[in-house]
């Protein structure tokens, strides 16, 4: 119980409230998951076509890598 409390307190220390006007750094392109949406979509399409059964990224493809 005590360990659990301690652990959660250490983890919570990493949380901070970002005010609406403090989002400047978060808005930088370098902070995006996909800096270039077009390239990211292309990568997903190739990945999905090669990994036929997995995928599920919302990008349509037949598994042959042709579409």
């Amino acid at each position, binding site marked *: 119980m005590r360990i659990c409390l301690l652990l959660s307190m250490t983890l919570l220390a990493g949380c901070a409230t970002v*005010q609406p006007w403090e*989002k*400047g750094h978060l808005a930088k392109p370098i902070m995006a998951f996909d800096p270039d949406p077009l390239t990211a979509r292309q990568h997903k399409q190739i990945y999905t076509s090669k990994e036929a059964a997995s995928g599920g990224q919302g990008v349509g493809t037949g598994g042959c890598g042709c579409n």
Partner: protein
Amino acid sequence: MLRLLDVQGRQHDLADLRGKVVYLDFWASWCGPCRQSFPWMNQLQQRHAKDGLVVLAVNLDAEAKDAAAFLARYPASFSVLYDATGASAKTWGVKAMPSSYLIDRQGAIRSRHIGFRPSSAVELDAQIAALLQTP
């Protein structure tokens, strides 16, 4: 309660603008809708300055050079004040960017607007025109 400096280091106090209708806008360089609001605010200032309207924009960028780059692309013909600490935004309870406040001639906050869309402009134009009519 708003007392901030402009780029020349001149102090602007909201209390000095009693008797004027004030459109107070909080913005930052990274905020998308702010880009749309600037041409409209320029127009607003131009159209209604003679009727007693003052447009005040408070920049909340942490770094002044970001604001300068924004203003080079989207010039402002109204007063821009700087608050890198964000203290004024906290006082005014800014919930999103951009946020604007419409203040009447008696110095009371009449309405608050969050965000900016072309439809916002239409709505705000009507509100401001109505407020300018009232003494």
